[in-house]
């Protein structure tokens, strides 16, 4: 009976029917095994919804497409399907643009959604879900607040809406489109049933993502490349010689070769304004429409790569205004994520070498910040200490497979490689290059940061063991990549 009333309400709605632009997305995801990088973990599936945009493109979250080996689009009534490919993806912003892999099929019969004008706190959003029998369910909610939300990659914070709504379990609900007055206004990424709150990616970020891809090559969101600390503590403020009232963020870290570094911003400077907005002591500013927002939105949401923005800082007590050009960030020593990338590895005689990544550390489980080896966690918290040593990536001996060549080494793991045969190692391809020439005594010397500090490997024996590996079903002894100069 209740349901009946609900549908009556739906029919009575005066807005355009957005259900016509919604498609089902079924993704099969498969990532690599962190401990045995030559093989993949078992596949998983994710079911969500996407929204049709002009030119048969479909917008959904990056979570639906990251590590996907097969993406299938299905019509709302589950009768027609179509394979899809990824056109553009941003893991930090959690957005992906898909297109049919081949013929547009049933998409030609659907009506592309229009993009809504920016919405504000207090605006009403409606979320679309599909039932198994193709009936659509609409749930309405009001935007409680606008905040910078991290919805997929833990380090990616972007403008989003927190919406109070009471959602239900339904088919394909991993990702849901949100509409405002019949036009696409965001993408729902998660729902907390206890507090009945939804996290929604904002239309502002969706539009910036689509605009970036208009020329067919997706570049990504800009970053300032700084680490900051609040200046709430009055004693800290007076030590910095900041006035008692007023704001400012202390710059505690500057990413080498990032936008801030190139503009001359230094560690110890205090960030006062960005694009004319005052930054308070906790890092917030007042957006004319959206209310209080965290400052990175001024860079990531309100600016684009290549743009020059005015930034005011306090440098050694003197105010300074800089024109900061937002440039592409340099590749970090440790990548934030490893989605859609086959992890490089090298096996030599049973020694397994990999490049250290955040993903490798996270593979130590839920408590990885406690369980992962201390020497590797140190790299994550203090990457500068390791970048200084001329490395592009950090090569580690991740494990030792018991072979004739590795007798006595079986229990070694998580050793950072400092040099091989006297040569420093900038990355895995460089390590492979060093292994190509054998020292005159036929033994490779691998120096590491932990006991026993030196590991020796017999070239002839290692070759023999490696040949055995291939015979025993290891698909390959290495997966390397080209090093761009």
């Amino acid at each position, binding site marked *: 009976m209740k349901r009946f009333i609900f549908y009556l309400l739906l029919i009575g709605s005066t807005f355009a029917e957005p259900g016509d632009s919604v498609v089902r997305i079924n993704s099969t995801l498969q990532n690599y095994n962190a401990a045995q990088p030559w093989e993949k973990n078992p596949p998983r599936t994710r079911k969500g919804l996407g929204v049709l945009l002009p030119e048969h493109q479909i917008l959904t979250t990056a979570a639906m497409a990251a590590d996907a080996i097969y993406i299938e689009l299905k019509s709302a009534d589950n009768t027609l399907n179509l394979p899809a490919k990824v056109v553009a993806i941003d893991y930090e912003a959690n957005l992906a643009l898909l297109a049919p892999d081949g013929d547009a099929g049933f998409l030609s019969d659907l009506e592309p959604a229009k993009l809504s004008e920016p919405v504000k706190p207090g605006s009403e959003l409606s979320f679309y879900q599909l039932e198994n029998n193709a009936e659509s369910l609409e749930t309405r909610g009001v935007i409680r607040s606008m905040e910078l939300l991290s919805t997929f990659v833990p380090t990616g914070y972007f403008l989003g809406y927190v919406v109070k709504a009471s959602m239900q379990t339904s088919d394909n609900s991993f990702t849901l489109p949100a509409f405002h007055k019949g036009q696409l206004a965001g993408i729902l990424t998660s729902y907390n049933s206890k507090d009945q709150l939804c996290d929604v990616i904002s239309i502002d970020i969706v539009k910036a993502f689509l605009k970036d891809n208009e020329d067919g090559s997706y570049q990504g969101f800009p970053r300032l490349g700084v*680490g900051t*600390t*609040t200046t*709430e*503590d009055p*004693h*800290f403020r*007076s*030590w910095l010689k900041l006035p008692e009232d007023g704001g400012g963020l*202390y710059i*505690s*870290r500057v990413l080498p070769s990032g936008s801030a570094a190139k503009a001359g911003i230094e560690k110890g400077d205090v960030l006062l304004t960005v694009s004319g907005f005052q930054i308070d002591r906790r890092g917030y500013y007042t957006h004319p429409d959206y209310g209080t927002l965290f400052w990175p939105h001024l860079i990531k949401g309100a600016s684009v790569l290549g743009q020059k923005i005015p930034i005011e800082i306090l440098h050694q007590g003197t105010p300074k205004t800089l024109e900061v050009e937002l440039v592409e960030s340099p590749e970090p020593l440790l990548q934030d994520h490893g989605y859609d990338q086959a992890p490089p590895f090298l096996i030599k005689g049973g020694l397994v070498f990999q490049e250290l990544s955040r993903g490798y550390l996270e593979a130590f489980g839920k408590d990885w*910040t*406690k369980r992962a080896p*201390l*020497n590797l*966690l*140190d790299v994550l*918290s*203090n990457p500068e200490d390791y970048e200084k040593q001329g490395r592009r990536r950090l090569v580690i001996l991740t494990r030792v497979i018991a072979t004739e*060549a*590795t*007798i*006595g*080494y079986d229990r070694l793991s998580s050793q950072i490689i400092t040099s091989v045969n006297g040569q420093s190692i900038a990355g895995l391809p460089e390590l492979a290059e060093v292994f190509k020439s054998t020292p005159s*005594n036929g*033994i490779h*010397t691998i120096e590491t940061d932990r*006991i*026993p*500090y*030196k*590991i*020796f*490997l*017999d070239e002839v*024996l290692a070759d023999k063991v490696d040949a055995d590996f291939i015979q025993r079903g290891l698909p390959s002894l290495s997966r390397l990549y080209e090093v761009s100069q």
Partner: protein
Amino acid sequence: MRILTRLLFAVFLPHVSLAQLQELNPVTQKPSLYDSVVKIEVATQSPDYRTPWNSGRFQGGTGTGFLIGPNQILTNAHVVSNARRVLITQRGSSQKHVARVKHIAHDCDLALVELQYFGPFEDLQHMELGGMPSLESRVSAIGYPVGGERLSVTQGVVSRIDFSSYSHSRADSHLVIQIDAAINPGNSGGPVIQDGKVIGVAFQGNNQADNVGYIIPTPVVNRFLKDIEDGSYDHYMDLGITPFPLFNPAMRSAVKMTESAKGVLVANVVPEGPADGLLERGDILLSIDDNPIDSAGNIRIGTEFVDMNEIVERKFAGDKVTFQLMRDGKEMTQEITLKAFPYSRIYSIRYEEKPRYTFFAGLVFQPLDLNLFASFSFENQRLRQLFTDYVSEGLFRKHEDIVVLTRVENDRLTTHMDKFRGLVVEQVNGEKIKNLRQLHECLNQENPPEFYEIRFSGAAVPLIIPSAEVASAQARISAKVGITKPSQLD
């Protein structure tokens, strides 16, 4: 009730030999061996490392001890650790005699206790220490465990002789005898006898196994008794090296060893340890005191292969150890004089010590050791790494104490300082902090700087305290939190 008692006795009867039954007979006039086994009641005061200014917890417990010489009662260190009062009761008597701890060795869990007035105990036999029992031979454990008031005897066989951990200090391993008689609370410190001689001291059980008890064998007891002959206990000695087995053919060939050659690789030498400057990374140790060392670092004693450290285990401070070794293809001899290495005690639980700390304007600083680790859950990666590498990487040279900000008491001065809790102090106003006393002095200067600027390892910003506010905050917070003493530096 009486029937029940008899039944119980009947059940236990087959385990007790005839000779012992005679000794159990109360009409025997001459004191039996069992009479030399006494009950020890201890009242303890254990410091609380979370509130180091407080008196700590007052508790108590009982254990067993036995007479080995004139006014010399041997027991476990853990029975009398942190003792404030020790009382001894003779078998079959209810009179409690005041005693005190004369020597205590936490690393081998042994202690020697003496009575205030030895008179009433003068007639008792002194129990004689024997040697190592053989596997499968029968032994009896005597003591005052839980489950009754009177003396208890359990029998078992020697099931294993091993090098294993001593849980009292949480850091030490020595020779251990495992028997299949259960060792229960209260048994601790009691003698385990065979043919009328003591072959060990009952000391710990195993929660993961049934009917397993562990005893400290006489070589360990004799070493303790010898160590204290000069009036003080000096601890076990350690070489301060990390050996790495030389099994790998490529590694052997790289260090120029023939196929049949023996010897173990030195992978690390602890800076300022006994071997520093005498042994080097990459040395191959061939023999220790003329005992050939194999590729795994073991030597042969009699028919058993044991770790080469067994040689060091039996030695004392000032004793020498001679190594035959290979360095850069040349054979040489090095003589190492053993010495105490107090820095390694950071990894042991400490007893009898007052926790050190300094309290400054709402901040509590304490030096890191295992006691502190057991009381707080530290997660900071820099702190954990400093602790792990403290000895092996010689970090004690930079940080004699690893000084940690353990508490931030809530106050208007400290409102924004909680983020620094659990971090290691690196500098105060540019001065590198090596130990707690130095930190205390830096924070209590006669002419203070305008701001105290405390920098922590791995933290992006310093903690700032305006010196003008220190005195009032110190008084205000001390009074509210109940800190009666601002520091304990020794």
